[in-house]
């Protein structure tokens, strides 16, 4: 065998990350402080509401958006979580998901729009999205720590990266799916690009965009659980400590809470998408 020198790919990446943390840590630390305060205020806000009141509000929301079945499911599921003593970690996970999803959407929408309107940009972005989605989720956790430290902010950073691709993809897809004749009609009457986007393309793309957001939320939830490995609080942390103490019962209880949360988030966003499509 010829002795091919090993390519120091990992070394390069570390050097790059070191450079970035060395020069930009004041930026990332500022972001970190800002995000941390947002997370804790959202968390405090949600925890300030008594669990029974929160359950009623969420059940009513589910009933309004989807129907009585989802409302009943919300009452039963959330009551079970409360009863198991998992209310606080569930709210912590929910806060992380909400914030990570909001950040992901804020970044993903403009990127998706650009990818839809520019073929060149699309060709650059799509492979990057493939990369982001297929890279094992844990890997994002490692570089997050030097930037943002142990805890919730790193979790959010990794979650945003991991969960953003579907929102971008579906936004681009939704806009590209607008029939040519409709786009021509908007142009023919003299719309500006922005008018065409706001009055035609985005409204028609909305159901597809919502499908992307639904997927983003689901990915975010799965990542938030994994993020317990770098010290994020929540249901993931419960699972993690159950593993370390070899308590399968406690592990399953936390796992079931994740499933309930996932089903609620999924059905709510699905129903919102359905309502958009039906208009």
């Amino acid at each position, binding site marked *: 065998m010829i002795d091919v020198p090993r390519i120091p790919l990992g070394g390069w990446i570390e050097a790059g990350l070191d450079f970035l943390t060395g020069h930009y840590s004041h930026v990332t630390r500022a972001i970190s402080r800002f995000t941390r305060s947002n997370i804790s205020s959202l968390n405090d806000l949600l925890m300030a509401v008594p669990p029974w009141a929160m359950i009623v509000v969420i059940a009513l929301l589910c009933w309004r958006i989807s129907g009585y079945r989802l409302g009943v499911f919300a009452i039963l599921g959330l009551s079970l979580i409360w009863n198991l003593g998992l209310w606080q970690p569930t709210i912590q996970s929910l806060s992380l998901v909400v914030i990570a999803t909001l950040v992901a959407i804020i970044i993903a929408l403009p990127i998706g729009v650009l990818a839809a309107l520019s073929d060149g940009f699309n060709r650059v972005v799509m492979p990057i999205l493939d990369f982001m989605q297929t890279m094992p989720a844990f890997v994002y956790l490692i570089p997050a720590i030097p930037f943002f430290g142990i805890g919730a902010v790193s979790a959010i950073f990794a979650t945003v990266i991991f969960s953003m691709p579907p929102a971008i993809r579906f936004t681009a897809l939704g806009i590209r799916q607008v029939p040519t004749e409709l786009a*021509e009609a908007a142009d023919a009457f003299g719309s500006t690009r922005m*008018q065409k986007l706001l009055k035609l393309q985005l*409204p028609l793309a909305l159901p597809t965009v919502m499908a992307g957001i639904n997927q983003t939320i689901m990915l975010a939830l799965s990542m938030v659980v994994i993020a317990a490995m770098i010290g994020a609080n929540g249901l993931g942390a419960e699972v993690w400590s159950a593993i370390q103490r070899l308590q399968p019962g406690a592990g399953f209880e936390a796992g079931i809470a994740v499933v309930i949360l996932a089903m609620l988030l999924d059905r709510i966003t699905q129903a919102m998408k359905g309502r958009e499509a039906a*208009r």
Partner: protein
Amino acid sequence: MSDDPQSQDGVRIRVRKLSKVFGKHPDRALALRDQGLDRAAILERTGDTLGLSNIDFEVRSGELLVIMGLSGSGKSTLIRCLNRLIEPSEGEISIEGDEITRMDAKRLRECRRRHFSMVFQHFALFPHRSVLANAEYALEIRGMPKAQRQEKALDALRRVGLEEWKDAYPRQLSGGMQQRVGLARALASDSSVMLMDEAFSALDPLIRRDMQQELVGLQRELDKTIVFITHDLDEALNIGDRIILLKDGEIVQVGTPEEILTRPANAYVERFVEGVDMSRVLTAQAAMRRPVAPVTLDDTPGEALARMDEGGVDTLYVVDDERRLAGILERGAVVRACAGEAPSLATLIEREVPRVLPEEPLHHLFPMFNKRSYPIAVVDGEGRLRGVVVRGAVLAQLAEVGREAPSPEPVPSLAPLDGPSATGVSS
């Protein structure tokens, strides 16, 4: 702009040497075209499609210009070059003297807002907007205040008979109604030119006929300039003031429907027009005769009777001082009046006279014959009597062109009053 040379000669849009190549090497494709290669050869050599080649024509103010050709002949490409939804590869297009092909994005947008509206084959209504909001669209993007633009949009909807549907959504309407909304959206924009790409091709034949009539009516009433695309010769002949026949991206013939039919430019056009129902094309003008000299309201019944005897007819037109048609006299009534007290003609005349404009297609006259025993008066825009059409003359005209008349009922034999030589007589 009255000092504009183009509007003085009645030309609204002028197209010069327009070509369009779909593909990566337009210059190479055009060079090959100049060497005499045809579309297929250019496609084989370069992989590029020569969509349009060397197109020259004008759109005159107030005309309904039909661009006709088989599928793939380049019609959609041509109409989209006019407002630059498709970028031309070479050539010039100007509207009222402004060169569209040189405009930057901002001026092009302004030009589209002012000059062009468009109606699409599959309607292209915005599904998330109500009928009213669709009709408002062109005005909304210009920033017109809401109340004002809604009023205009409602006017347009009223014109196409859809006012009560203003709050409905497009998917709740039938195809014909949807296209009326498309029409209203274009009308509301108040553009000087309306572009219609196969606007009626997706509709049922019966609805299609109605829409054609309605369009012609609207166009006359509003004095719109319309460029209308169709692959259907019947439709082209039915509504077109002039027709441009396109084949493989080139113009084969330009002319009035009658010119295209009676003087096809080459064998291709001849084949194209074979089997056309002539009664759709020929107009009342082609079949009308000089009427027996009409009387005026001041004349006496005796004079009227004398005219009738002279001309050998049983009915006689009555006109006013400016030769505007006032009514018709029947022999029976006149004879009775002469025998009695001889009242003035005004009390004798029948004012409900079937009348048509000179450009009315002959096939519209058949049903009128079924209802009335009177001949049909041909009057100009001001109501002045220009001629008369009797049923036999219609048949004679059709026979002259060598076609059988498609009659809604068995045709009774009826000798023409006088020879078929009187076509195109005014008075």
